[in-house]
């Protein structure tokens, strides 16, 4: 091949990559935790001061959903989760992520008061919009979220009987996603 064609070939390859890139979302981050054990934690729940840890879910396939009352997209996905929880016997555990935001006046209060306020707000919200969660853990400072690689709300994980993360979705869960990806996955895991 003559040397003069090198620029053209190079440019051609570049265009191909750019064309493929048009169909990709540069802000979407795949999770490196898939296939790894779900990070351990011990947090108090919305309902009581008894702590919850993922260990308690060993032997079951379950969903872990990151949410907050201030999150608009969570409101969109919530009915989907509620319907899903009612129809299937798959437990969903909620992670109440940074319920008290930094600009909130309650943010300056003591930890005990912050927890109380967060619980109240979450309980009211769940009463109004439905509660799909078997329990909801309170991650007030977001540390557990960071352990799970959370960078936005809502996020949803599927965790298997051995406590290994099998799936992660960032953004609102849609009925289509549930039907096409999550449910088949969970049923497949349930069989093995």
């Amino acid at each position: 091949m003559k040397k003069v064609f090198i620029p053209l070939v190079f440019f051609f390859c570049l265009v191909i990559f750019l064309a493929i890139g048009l169909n990709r979302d540069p802000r979407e981050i795949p999770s490196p935790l898939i296939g790894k054990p779900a990070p351990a934690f011990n947090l108090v729940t919305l309902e009581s001061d008894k702590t919850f840890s993922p260990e308690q879910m060993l032997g079951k396939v379950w969903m872990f959903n990151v949410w907050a009352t201030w999150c608009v997209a969570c409101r969109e996905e919530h009915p989907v989760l509620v319907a899903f929880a009612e129809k299937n016997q798959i437990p969903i555990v909620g992670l109440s992520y940074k319920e008290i935001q930094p600009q909130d006046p309650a943010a300056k209060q003591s930890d005990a008061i912050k927890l109380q306020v967060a619980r109240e707000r979450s309980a009211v919200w769940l009463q109004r919009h439905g509660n799909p969660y078997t329990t909801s853990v309170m991650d007030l400072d977001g540390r557990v979220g960071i352990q799970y690689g959370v960078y936005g709300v809502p996020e949803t994980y599927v965790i298997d009987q051995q406590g290994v993360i099998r799936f992660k979705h960032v953004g609102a869960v849609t009925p289509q996603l549930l039907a096409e990806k999550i449910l088949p996955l969970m049923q497949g895991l349930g069989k093995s």
Partner: protein
Amino acid sequence: MKCIIVFLMGLCVGLANAGEASPMAEDPVVEARLVHISPELRCLVCQNESLSSSRAELADDLRREVRDLIRANKSDQEIKDFLVSRYGDFVLYRPEVKPLTWVLWFGPFVVLLVAAIFLLAYLRQRRLVVQPEALSDADRARVEQLLKD
């Protein structure tokens, strides 16, 4: 005695009026390490900003995590590994040198080397080529004129 009291009072007033500003950071040693490592880490929710400049909430949380890790005497590499194991390679602004990024890191220098070799070869071969001098414009115009006639 009065002089001393007045002097001491003046000193107090002076001190009360012009204090040395205290650093934002609680621990300058930890902060120095943070300042060093945060430009290498990406703010995941921003439009291309590092942890050192971003004011996003998640950036605050991540900086807090990094400070905790620094206090626990973790090395820079350990801190990066901590974040990569949770967020993937995306969080590093300096891509790790591994087979996936060899082209990225070594490509430019390899190309430079190859180009330099080609350049030398070209110039060597070029000096042997004798070409007639290009016609000046005036000559060219004359030739055109002659050809027209």
